């Protein structure tokens, strides 16, 4: 019997394709919006997870801040860098530096964004190597002019042959390209970089040794077994030298903490979007209900005929319910399918910085909700159909 309801529903959908598509569209849009947001939500969650599982999850960011009360700003100097290096529990420190340099390639000179990177940088942010090698500890320590280009920049500057092992000119200084890094959008998030850099050089090549040089951010990597809260306290007290007046001039935050706060913020922004998407799903449900009501009215005579042939109230009720559930479930399924395809495309084309992925459980929930909407939307029209007196239904013109 259920097969018959299904068959009838499909036959009718085939008979009225435009109406079917229009009524599905509302559900489609609602579910598409909902699952796209869920995918973003999931993407953020995975980003955080990525950071947690990073080899150097215990990464701390130390930044000078401006104290509005005393109208003073903190100052981080190369001397602080040396001092922090000796703190117990600290494995390595590195100033976060970025600048741009004009690099002469095979064909022309191009402006390339550079980021400072020491040996740990590559393992902490899990940067894959595509060719050549990463920096050697010796090269970083003695500030040799070596560079690693990201893949895209390597291709742009050296379209004809691999740059590994070549010497390139950066505004008068000669650098040796030792490797090519496979950069992905994920790394930007993990390292909290605004954009993909064109290349990486040891910090010493960029940093001048003048004592008044002010650093915007110092990155500290601690040993993995160090306690996160205690470590943050230790760094903070070292940099403030436990002077109350300096307390408000520096901020120490673990990378984990920073990303968590950021993710929580965007997740709460997403939650309000989720509400909007839910409303559009309800609107879609109303659309389905409307189509079903029209259908019930149009098919009054059919209902009469079916009852004359022996259909009970439940037979009619189920027939219309199956129909409205199919309408909304088809809309929902195609929506999820297209968002899934969209996520894959966004990832493989590198449009999205997030590991977009439709989470299975919420998606199942989403489908269940869709089916429920189909049920709810069909319930009133279907029960109206089922309650019709067969004699009246047959007289209906």
């Amino acid at each position: 019997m259920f097969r018959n309801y299904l068959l009838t529903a499909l036959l009718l959908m085939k008979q009225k394709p435009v109406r079917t598509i229009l009524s599905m569209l509302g559900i489609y849009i609602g579910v598409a919006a909902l699952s796209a947001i869920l995918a973003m939500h999931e993407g953020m969650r995975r980003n955080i997870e990525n950071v947690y599982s990073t080899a150097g999850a215990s990464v701390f960011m130390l930044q000078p801040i401006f104290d509005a009360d005393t109208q003073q700003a903190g100052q981080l100097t190369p001397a602080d860098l040396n001092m922090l290096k000796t703190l117990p529990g600290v494995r390595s420190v590195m100033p976060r530096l970025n600048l741009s340099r004009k690099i002469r390639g095979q064909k022309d000179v191009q402006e390339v964004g550079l980021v400072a990177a020491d040996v740990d940088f590559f393992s902490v942010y899990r940067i894959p190597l595509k060719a050549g090698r990463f920096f050697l500890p010796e090269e970083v320590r003695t500030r040799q002019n070596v560079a690693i280009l990201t893949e895209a920049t390597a291709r742009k500057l050296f379209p004809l042959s691999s740059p590994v092992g070549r010497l390139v000119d950066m505004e008068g200084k000669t650098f040796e390209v030792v490797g090519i890094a496979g950069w992905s959008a994920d790394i930007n998030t993990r390292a909290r970089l605004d954009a993909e850099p064109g290349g990486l050089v040891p910090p010493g090549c960029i940093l001048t040794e003048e004592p008044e040089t002010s650093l915007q951010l110092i990155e500290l990597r601690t040993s993995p077994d160090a306690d996160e809260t205690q470590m943050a306290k230790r760094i903070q007290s070292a940099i403030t030298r436990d002077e109350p007046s300096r307390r408000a001039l520096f901020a120490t935050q673990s990378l984990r903490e920073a990303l968590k706060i950021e993710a929580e913020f965007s997740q709460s922004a997403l939650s309000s979007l989720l509400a909007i998407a839910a409303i559009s799903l309800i609107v879609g449900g109303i659309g389905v209900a409307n189509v079903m009501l029209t259908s019930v009215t149009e098919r009054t005579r059919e209902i009469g005929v079916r009852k004359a042939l022996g259909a009970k109230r439940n037979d009619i009720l189920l027939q219309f319910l199956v129909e409205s559930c199919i309408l909304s479930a088809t809309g929902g399924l195609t929506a999820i399918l297209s968002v899934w395809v969209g996520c894959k495309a966004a990832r493989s084309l590198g449009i999205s910085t997030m590991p977009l992925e439709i989470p299975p459980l919420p998606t199942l929930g989403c489908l269940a909700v869709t089916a429920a909407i189909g049920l709810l939307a069909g319930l009133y029209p279907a029960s109206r159909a089922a309650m019709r007196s067969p004699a009246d239904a047959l007289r209906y013109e």
Partner: protein
Amino acid sequence: MSEILRLSDVRKKIGEGEAALEIVRGVSITIQQGEFVAIMGSSGSGKSTLLNMIGLLDRPTSGSITLMGRDVSSLGDDEMSELRCRAVGFIFQNFHLLPYLTAMQNVCLPMDYARKAGAAERAVELLGKVGLAHRANSYPATMSGGERQRVAIARALANDPVFLLADEPTGALDSRTGAQIMNLLAELHHGGSTILLITHDEKVGRRAEKTLVISDGRLV
């Protein structure tokens, strides 16, 4: 011969108060197994209303209907459907086939509602009986009026009903096709079917064994 249907003083009132209209005003009939009865009357005389009550599609305002010795007035809607499904085979003036189903699927409908197995085989057999085996997979829109009515007759026979109820079965057909349909009904009658037919056409009415005349809601 056993009695299968008895109506006593059946009345049907439509509307309330001032606007109330009594369409059927005290009809009593008994029908025996194997009879072929025609109820005749002019248009608007209340024939269809009466037939709907006999076929359990509608309830009388007063009076009683006894089907196979069972008073149907106490039945609920679903029990009426159940009984209608097994006991009554409807044939309508406008065929009332479902346009999106094939002839065979249309014939299967009553058996589906009776939850009967082997519906497809039986449908093919019935279509053969009405001479339409070759149109089993055709849609109603591709058939002539006479063919559609024969599919409808096959559908009415699907659950081996106690009786067939035909509401102006030739009303939408030309006289030659109408005569063919009447031949088919006569054949079914000879095969043992009980048939109750309503019509306003003298020629059609004459084909029945017994003729009752209704005028203004009363048998005369």
